[in-house]
């Protein structure tokens, strides 16, 4: 009786220690991904597909944002970090990088907005706050322009800054949302707003406008006529585990790239 009690207390203690140090954390064959929220839905779908044919491996996909992706990949918390930036920061120097897809950025307005096209110059003026009213750029809509942006540091935002704002700064009147989906929701509900999201997130609830007369579509990004796009990187440590290597090979394979293309991203391999 006494012995049983001591043993059970000992057992509980050991399990606690075991939990707290997380010795068992890596015992299963898990490929962990984390990072870019823009690529998250696609990664999730690809993981599902991969696991159908590789039943012994779990692919765990997290969001968190490009920066978190870079950080946890560097720390070795995940196997693969996902980042969607035009230029990668110096924190990634020690990591292997591979481009798995490209992604166009579409400028979106509310469905009730008559606007269909803007020049690149107009866009810079609007997003930097030099133009404040819709009337000033010839749009028949009363009221102020409400700019909705991603927050600083986001991959989409960084690419947008480099491609559209260039040396100008985003207007201080801008409102911020923290993912493609939330910007789409905000633009959907506010008739005076303008924002930008990844082309893969476009749907019928908002209207994408052309830039310099060129429609925001994947075809035009591939033809390089629509200039606003950025790459999606997978970042991983040198000498990855066989499972990780295998998953990356799968992502770069024809089958996975087809899925990527079907869902609105631009494949990096000819399919």
């Amino acid at each position: 009786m006494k012995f049983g009690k001591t043993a059970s207390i000992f057992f509980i203690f050991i399990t606690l220690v075991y939990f707290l140090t997380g010795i068992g954390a890596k015992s299963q064959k898990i490929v962990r991904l984390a990072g870019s929220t823009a690529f998250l839905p696609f990664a999730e779908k690809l993981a599902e597909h991969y696991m159908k044919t590789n039943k012994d491996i779990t692919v765990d996909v997290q969001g968190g944002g490009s920066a978190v992706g870079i950080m946890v990949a560097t720390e070795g918390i995940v196997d693969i970090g996902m980042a969607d930036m035009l230029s990668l920061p110096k924190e990634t120097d020690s990591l292997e990088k591979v481009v798995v897809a490209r992604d166009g950025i579409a400028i979106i307005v509310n469905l009730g907005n008559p606007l269909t096209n803007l020049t690149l110059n107009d866009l810079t003026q609007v997003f930097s706050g030099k133009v404040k009213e819709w009337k000033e750029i010839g749009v028949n809509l009363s009221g102020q322009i409400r700019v909705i942006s991603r927050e600083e540091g986001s991959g989409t935002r960084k690419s947008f800054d480099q491609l559209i704002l260039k040396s100008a700064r985003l207007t201080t009147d801008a409102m911020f949302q923290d993912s493609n989906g939330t910007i789409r929701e905000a633009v959907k509900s506010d008739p005076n707003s303008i924002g930008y999201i990844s082309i893969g997130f476009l749907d019928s609830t908002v209207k994408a406008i052309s830039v310099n007369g060129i429609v925001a579509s994947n075809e035009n990004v591939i033809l390089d006529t629509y200039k606003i796009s950025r790459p999606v990187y997978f970042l991983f440590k040198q000498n990855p585990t066989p499972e990780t290597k295998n998953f990356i090979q799968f992502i770069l394979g024809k089958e996975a790239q087809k899925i990527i293309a079907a869902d609105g991203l631009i494949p990096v391999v000819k399919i």
Partner: protein
Amino acid sequence: MNPKLTQKIAKSLLCGAVLLTSVVLFFIIFYILYHGLSNVNWNFLTGNVEDLGKKGGIFPTIVSTIYLTALSVLIAAPLGIGTALYLTCYTEENLFTKIVRFGTDCLAAIPSIIFGLFGFMLFVIYLRLSWSILSGALTLASMMLPTIIRTTEEAIRAVPSSYMDVNYALGGTKLQGIVKIILPKALPGILTGVILSMGRAVSETAALIFTAGMSLRVPVSMFASGRSMAVHFYSLAREGISLTNAFATASVLMITVLIINIVSYLIMHLFLRKYI
């Protein structure tokens, strides 16, 4: 002005405040249930999340929620009840109890986002638990502690001290008195506290996004990531993935919260009356 008239006006204004509060509460409940309940069915509750929640059900998020809640209660309850026992039975008021009380009060006041950052830095990064049910549960447990400590302390203090005197008079030790008399008498109160803190675990979002992660699969172990119902609802509603599913998830969430509150209310009123 006539004092009687003032009284009447004041009373109706006060009554108005009570009515307003009740209306707000019922509006929130009905708004969510009205829009969501029609889409809650067996397939929704037991189906896998498909296409990030656009289609399919919420089964994995229910499992994750239960997993997170159970594990965090398992961690927090012994710590909380032990602390309360120490404060009530094992010591006089001194500097140490003051420090413990201060710690409890501070912990209760800390915003969940700070718990999130802390859990992320300690459990996810430093202890290398990654985003997992365990990281989430440990973070939740830290958040629940104050509630459990306070309610347990109250419940134990409500047990008349004469009971303990009888215990000593009959030759029982302190430990026997606590285990055989105080804890059973205080159990309904302790249970209420534990159930209320479960409510907190079910409705937490900010801290869990940072610690338990967003994985949409059924967590295979406590080292796997899992998305709780509240986090799933947040993502559905905010990213506009599917409004119908968002409302349906919110309905399930609200019903869970309702049940938790009703159960704790019943325990409180049925048992406590009888015991004290």
